[in-house]
């Protein structure tokens, strides 16, 4: 094995210790506003983990993760709204009154149950993902066609939620910060502190879960599908089922992420399902390092943190920076920051600068998949 400047095993450990230490320290160091921001970014890390599973490991670039993210958010928000509307007229959320609706639409009913909501937050998005995925994968639609179709599906969901005022409050979305949970306002400082802890815990849990998925043979099959799908098929594996499962898992993770994000940002709206937001999620993973689970988490947190810093200082420049990141990461840094650090990146950079001898081979020349439709 080649030696790398930074030890493969030690390096993630250091990052983990740093992450956990800062999570533990954060609530006492940061004001609630900043803590809340950090909590939101951590919840975005969960959707990023899902994208890493489907894109980094399985090679499916979904541009529609916003669907599942928003579905999770809506599940949580519907429960919270119902939970705190007992004293309102008709016992239904206030916004229905604006459109003259007297009784609850049928699909709201089950969200009166906390248990149903708790399960629904991840199960509903993953079922939707499974259905969508199965219909697409069954026909061997892959590569860019898959990306385009997921993007179109995203637009469809956006249009649906945006247009249905009477069912789901349309473009205004559902507010959660003024709702109550356990007798406390969801937007209150103490609740937000609690959500931060839950989020942090769930990020770690999601990481272990994702690692379990990709660690052994199942993960190897996923990588096999990414690199040469028909070879996997000829070995006797039903790749459609594998892809559907991993897409459903990513959908479920997105749902959890969306629910956590919703309760910490105080609202869920069709804005969660816009095209740019879903593509943005991809760039977190790309910059962090696709195929490295830790990279997805770091990418999501760091880029969003950078985004809030830059947007506060120079609002107009973030779009330029983000656009530049997209171009940069595919042209010069395809493995992302973490992948670059773990491979021979630093060594190559040093050798370019004349510090040490260059390697004889150029990595990345052989990374062409057989199965991509090339025209």
């Amino acid at each position, binding site marked *: 094995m080649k030696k790398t400047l930074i030890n493969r095993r030690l390096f993630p450990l250091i990052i983990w210790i740093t992450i956990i230490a800062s999570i533990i320290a954060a609530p006492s160091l940061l004001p609630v506003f900043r803590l809340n921001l950090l909590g939101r970014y951590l919840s975005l890390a969960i959707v990023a983990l899902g994208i890493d599973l489907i894109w980094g490991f399985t090679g499916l670039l979904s541009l529609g993760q916003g669907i599942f993210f928003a579905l999770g958010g809506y599940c949580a928000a519907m429960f919270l709204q119902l939970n705190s509307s007992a004293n309102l007229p008709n016992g239904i959320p206030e916004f229905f009154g604006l459109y003259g609706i007297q009784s609850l639409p049928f699909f709201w009913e089950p969200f009166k149950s906390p248990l149903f909501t708790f399960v629904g937050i991840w199960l509903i998005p993953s079922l939707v993902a499974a259905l969508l995925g199965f219909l697409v994968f069954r026909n061997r639609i892959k590569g860019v066609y898959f990306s385009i179709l997921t993007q179109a599906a995203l637009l469809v969901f956006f249009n649906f939620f945006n247009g249905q005022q009477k069912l789901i409050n349309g473009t205004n979305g559902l507010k959660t910060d003024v709702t109550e949970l356990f007798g406390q306002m969801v937007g209150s400082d103490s609740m937000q502190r609690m959500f931060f802890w839950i989020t942090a815990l769930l990020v770690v849990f999601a990481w272990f879960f994702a690692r379990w998925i990709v660690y052994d043979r199942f993960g190897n099959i996923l990588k096999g599908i990414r690199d040469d799908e028909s070879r996997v098929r000829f070995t006797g594996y039903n790749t459609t089922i594998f892809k559907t499962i991993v897409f459903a898992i990513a959908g479920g993770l997105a749902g959890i992420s969306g629910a956590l994000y919703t309760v910490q940002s105080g609202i869920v709206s069709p804005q969660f399902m816009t095209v740019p937001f879903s593509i943005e999620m991809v760039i977190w993973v790309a910059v962090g390092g696709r195929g490295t689970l830790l990279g997805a988490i770091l990418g999501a947190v760091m880029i969003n943190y950078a985004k809030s810093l830059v947007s506060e200082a120079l609002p107009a420049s973030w779009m330029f920076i983000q656009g530049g990141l997209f171009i940069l990461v595919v042209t010069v840094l395809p493995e992302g920051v973490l992948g670059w650090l773990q491979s021979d990146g630093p060594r190559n950079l040093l050798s370019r600068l004349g510090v040490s001898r260059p390697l004889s081979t150029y990595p990345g020349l052989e990374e062409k998949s057989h199965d991509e439709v*090339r025209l």
Partner: protein
Amino acid sequence: MVQLILESLFNGIAIGSVLLIAALGLAIVFGLMGVINLAHGELMMLGAYSTYVTQLVFKLPALKPFYNSYVIVSLMVAFLVAAVVGILLERSIIRRLYGSPLETLLATWGVSLILQQFVRSVPLAYASGIIIALLIGLIVPLIVPHDLLSHRRNRLIKVGSLGGSVLVGLLSANWLSTSISRLGRASARNVDVTAPSWMRGGLDLWGITFPVTRLVIIVITIIAVISVTWFLKQSVWGMRIRAVTQNREMSECLGISTKKVDVLTFGIGSGLAGVAGVAVSLLGSVGPNVGGSYIVGCFMVVVLGGVGNLLGTIIASFAIGIMTDLIGAGRLLSIWPDMPSPLASTVDFFATTSMARVLVFALIVVFLQFRPSGLFPQKGRMVES
């Protein structure tokens, strides 16, 4: 009854022709080069802004008498502007990413973000200046006689033409910003292109009013489709483009400059986006996000029609257009008023533009279950390898 069907057919064709002109460039770039260009919508946006700038220029006293013909001029301007930006994009980024479509997709998305912010933060006058400089910089090497370039002082000529194009760009930017003050300031607000007087109003035929703008767009689309078909099937360069699509290595061995072919193909695809931008600017107000609302529809057209098939693209866009109109305007109900009530309420539920999109997409997914490669799939061994 006949009138109703005719009217809805016309509306469908009108929607379809906007889709078609927008998807045409995309279909060429995707079908012939395998490149997913998510910045296609932004190239359309540039075309729409070119129309706006051209219109303002034609309002200047010197050109005022020709104001009515600005649309025709702006077609050419928009084509050139979008083509130049497209070529720049191809040479700088996409060229490095041939053969990896997902990476191209992400990179072009980055480009689209930059272009959107660019028109927000840079005054249109200066943006025009930059484009004019680029255009001259690109054209000068093509028209300068070959002997002059191989002369030993060719470096001097190169520097001279570079400096010259920058100078012309600066001068024109300066001139634009002083003579049309509206172009001198950066603005994120939407702008409006006003159609010349002859394009306003409608044409009355068989008791139906056909809006002239729509008719003009249909005509533009027809001309674009015919000239693209002619170019690809009949001209020498069209043949070279098809040759490179089918076998890149072999074409190279036969002495076809694949670099030139790439530039040309991408330039034409992008230029068509610019032309589509003119059409779009005639329909509504123009803003930095105008392209984004069309791009997904364009991709649906290409996927439904079958990649690399012009006829499929045409049929798919009209099919989507007619269906969108039938569903979205609730026209089914007026054609068939005595519909049984459960069906009627369903039709009513989908009778908005956004809900029509929902249903049309669902229908496309159902369709792809039976024909996964679209209306006209490519056949044979080449597809999988």
